[in-house]
């Protein structure tokens, strides 16, 4: 993969999280952000847990302590358990500060498609629509292009939508983009990547931020 590794994407995303924030990490790549979250960030999972610790190592693992992606997680002081209707009150009632979600496609206006690919007959909505609607800020992290090398950031999503106009920030292996009312604003570029290269693999025209800079870690 050109630009950032998957770990570095997660690391960059984790820098958006501050102590005291309530954060949900979606299934897939976003769950790996848990390995980098700063102390004091309070993680939520839709299966009914708040304030859990890092992903468990194999010897710490308990099969009844998992996140929504069925990854084993760890206890830490201040953790609490609740049932899923309460978990979704947190998600749908706008109590979460940030959700970090994966994406198959994101549109120029912040539409998100992340629950069914073209290849499959059935999909997995899970809690993605609830989070995409409910969290105060939506950060998408994904590879900049799909496995066929086509842009994931598109003028119009062609895959079934998760929600319309909800994405605030996109972090990929190539760059960090803010979705603004004026369009997609390129804010940060991964080390060694050119603006032209990003534009070539981004379907809508990006706007260059006045403060455009190289991504730092």
């Amino acid at each position, binding site marked *: 993969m050109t630009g950032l590794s998957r770990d570095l994407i997660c690391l960059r995303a984790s820098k958006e999280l501050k102590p005291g924030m309530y954060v949900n990490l979606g299934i897939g790549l976003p769950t790996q952000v848990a390995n980098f979250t700063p102390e004091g960030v309070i993680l939520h999972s839709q299966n009914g847990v708040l304030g859990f610790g890092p992903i468990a*190592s194999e010897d710490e693992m308990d*099969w009844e302590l998992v996140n929504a992606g069925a990854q084993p997680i760890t206890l830490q002081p201040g953790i609490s358990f609740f049932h899923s209707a309460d978990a979704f009150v947190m998600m749908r009632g706008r109590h979460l500060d940030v959700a970090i979600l994966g994406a198959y496609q994101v549109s120029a206006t912040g539409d998100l498609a992340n629950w069914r690919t073209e290849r499959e007959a059935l999909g997995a909505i899970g809690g993605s629509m609830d989070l995409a609607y409910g969290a105060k800020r939506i950060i998408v992290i994904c590879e900049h292009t799909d496995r066929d090398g086509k842009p994931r950031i598109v003028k119009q999503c062609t895959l079934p939508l998760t929600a319309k106009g909800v994405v605030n920030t996109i972090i990929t292996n190539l760059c960090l983009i803010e979705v603004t009312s004026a369009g997609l604003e390129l804010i940060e570029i991964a080390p060694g990547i050119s603006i032209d290269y990003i534009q070539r693999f981004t379907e809508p025209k990006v706007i260059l931020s006045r403060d455009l800079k190289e991504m730092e870690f």
Partner: protein
Amino acid sequence: MSEVNKVVATPSQAVAGIFDGAVVGIGGFGAAGTPYRLLLALAEQKPKGLTVVGTSPRQFEFLIQSGCVKKAITPFARYADPAAPNPLLEPYLKGELEVEILPLGNLVERLRAAGAGIPAFYCPVGIGTIVEEGKEKKTFGQQECILEYALPLDFALIKAHKGDRLGNLVYRMTARCHNPVMAVAAKTTIAEVDEVVEVGELDPEAVVTPGIFVHRVVKAERPPLDWVYRGIKVARKT
């Protein structure tokens, strides 16, 4: 309360009377909180034409394989990992299984609504997606919303950690998940527990599902670890 005893002896007795065509909710999320022994017993009993309501293929697998299921209502119509073998796919493609896919939050609210005497509610989740298709809509402030209906269950099969003979239940960590909501939505709630305790042993402040929502309780052996760990992603050292 010497007269009340909801404890039955075996999973087969616990699932007795689940009739053809029943709507059956199944608790759990992945392996955690899934009533493994009740599902095996029901698959053996082989009712026909069930509508099953759950959150992942793990809850439906045994019942689909034994030909009990007409329709599945679920937010995950495959595993989160698209590459994992999907028990819903083949019967769906053959036209033998109807699948209703919906947001998990809409599902749990519809279940809670059924238990709470709320026939329908409005919510914004699903607007602009396939979820809104064919549904009544209404705008509140700037926010367009879908009218979602209560989803009542004939039976709920749930898994708890400890239960008493009044049906009071507590759960263990994230195995709690959807079980308490399933319990509320069902006419008859059947709970598989790791342990039956004496009345009075559960902390009254920590009972999660009070006995009013529970009709049968059965102590059952925990599921085999190979089944459990099949769904758990191997952790990586951090």
